[in-house]
């Protein structure tokens, strides 16, 4: 949209509003970004340095926040004293596995749902979407019982399957929107040109590929950031990063430096991925209701 700004004229009121808006924006940015900054900086602080606070009301004392000698020991201890290497791998496998399964089967289902009409389609659709929207704890109660009887609790396959409960409906729902946007005429032209139905389906895949790729990433993001499923279904053999980070909180001795470092390790990759697929993020986070 080249000219989306409606013309506006300067008045004293509008100037005052502009200043207020700028102020608000600045404050909000500080509020949003400060926690990241604190997390990042604290992950390089030694334990005692991290605990340093100025006296109450001593605003000039804020500088103590920056008085420290950077250390990487929290990061190294994550991998030496803890087995964060394994947890990263677990997170990757669980999130990646469920993302790949969800997107492969999801795109097949989304394509056919987009192209065929049958009685009860709306109901089927509602079932799919409500599966995605169901409260995680509520889903987990029966899932836990079932998985326990199948010996899936504490295993990566169990966790992958658990993540699929929200990723697969999500993929179907979003990808259907993608396929809806590909004109049927392109497949029809393919079929008249001499392709089979499956070849026609394959021929439009390149058109939706960027979207599908972005949604693989989004599915990974959702699964990577999950805590509840990982804490219950994955407990034992399939510990993921958020759970491992949480376990650093122990009643007597909270290792804040390590927790902050683990937070950085958990968050940084997702932040980067989020930036890569920024274009699709809004669509994804709003279940396709809002397209940017």
């Amino acid at each position, binding site marked *: 949209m080249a000219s989306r700004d409606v013309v506006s004229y300067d008045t004293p009121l509008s100037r005052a509003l502009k200043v207020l808006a700028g102020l608000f924006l600045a404050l909000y940015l500080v509020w949003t970004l400060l926690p990241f900054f604190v997390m990042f900086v604290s992950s390089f602080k030694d334990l005692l340095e991290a605990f340093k606070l100025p006296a109450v009301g001593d605003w000039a004392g804020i500088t103590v926040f920056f008085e420290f000698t950077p250390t990487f020991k929290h990061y190294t201890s994550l991998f030496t004293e803890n087995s964060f290497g394994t947890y990263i791998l677990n997170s990757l496998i669980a999130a990646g596995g469920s993302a790949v399964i969800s997107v492969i089967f999801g795109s097949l289902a989304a394509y056919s749902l987009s192209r065929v009409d049958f009685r009860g389609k709306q109901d089927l659709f509602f079932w799919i979407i409500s599966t995605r929207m169901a409260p995680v704890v509520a889903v987990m109660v029966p899932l836990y019982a079932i998985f326990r009887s199948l010996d899936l609790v504490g295993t990566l396959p169990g966790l992958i399957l658990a993540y699929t409960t929200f990723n697969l409906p999500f993929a179907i729902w979003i990808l259907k929107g993608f396929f809806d946007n590909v*004109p049927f*005429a*392109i497949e*029809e*032209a*393919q*079929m*008249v*040109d*001499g*392709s*089979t*139905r499956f*070849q026609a389906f394959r*021929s439009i895949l*390149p*058109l939706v590929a960027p979207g599908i790729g972005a949604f693989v990433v989004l599915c990974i993001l959702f699964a990577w950031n999950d805590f509840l499923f990982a804490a219950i279904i994955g407990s034992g053999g399939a510990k993921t990063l958020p759970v491992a980070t949480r376990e650093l909180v122990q009643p007597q001795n909270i290792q804040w430096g390590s927790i902050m470092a683990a937070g950085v390790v958990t968050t940084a990759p997702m932040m980067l991925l989020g930036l890569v697929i920024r274009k699709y993020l809004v669509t994804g986070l709003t279940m396709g209701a809002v397209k940017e």
Partner: protein
Amino acid sequence: MATVTIKNVWKYYGETPAVKDLNITCPDGSFVSILGPSGCGKSSTMRMLAGLEHISAGDILFDDQRINDLAPKDRDVAMVFENYALYPHKTVYENIANPLRLRKASEDTIKARVTGAAKLLEISHLLERRPHELSGGQKQRVAIGRAIVREPKLFLFDEPIAHLDAKLRAHMRGEIKHLQRTLGTTMIYVTHDQLEALSMADYIAVMHDGELQQWGTPAEIFNHPVNAWVAGFVGEPAMNFLTCDIKGQGDDVLLRHSNFEIPLLPGQVRQLNGAAQAGTARMGVRPDALSISMTRPDEAAMQGEIFVNELLGGDMLVEVQLDDCRIRVKTTPEFEGKPGENCFLSVNRDKWHVFDAGDGHAYF
């Protein structure tokens, strides 16, 4: 090359019939246009021919082969879609080559055919571009290129030039017609534009509400419409209709309107065949079968008041208030009447039509 026979074909969408008992035979090598307003069933018909829609009832035959149950790929037809349906991620070359690749033609054949088709359509310089880099007219040529590269039995064109601007459309009409004559392949061309149908087709099938109204050559459709609907739909500016009484007077039969009384020609009396004696009928006359003058030319002339003049370049269209209705007359730009002035109209009786007042079928 094939004769296409559509036999008692119906298309239902749920409980709604879109095509009703359609019967058409397109002779081998002919250019057939299916003409009708949107929603008349013409596109459904074409899609049934291509195999993109299920044929609810009836049969379609290519030569003598029933093709109802063949998949599109096995029908050996080529289709040009209304919005071109080019593959956006492939080059023009690959777009045109696609049907050949799907048929596993050799690379040499593909190259020869694609360059041949591109040359015929004058798009040789565009082969490396992608569809989004092309103008509407160029996209349309690529879509046609994809259709002709394979030398199919039958061409299906679904309003291929509807999205082009008026000038380009006029140009493409000639090109498509020439192309079809050159290739000699049977062509079925769907359009809602009566001018396209009249100017290009060997035969026109006029459809309305899912039913075939009339089948004939463009001249037959234009000069002898079978009913008032076809008469009103074909021809621009549209035909004027006036409700008249039919009155016998001695040996003559008169068409009487509050404004005039004009006798039918003797042959027309016979065609009327007493059917509508002393009833009402609808007189139809095209704007160019009327002439206008500022002085009364003869006793039978209609008298009216000029309502508005429209200069259309080489012609002038005059709208005349005739008692309680208005009719349009085509005349020359030299015509000097002004709105509000009285004028006189006379009818070329060889070119007028009389339709039944009830069901609208044509007496002549």
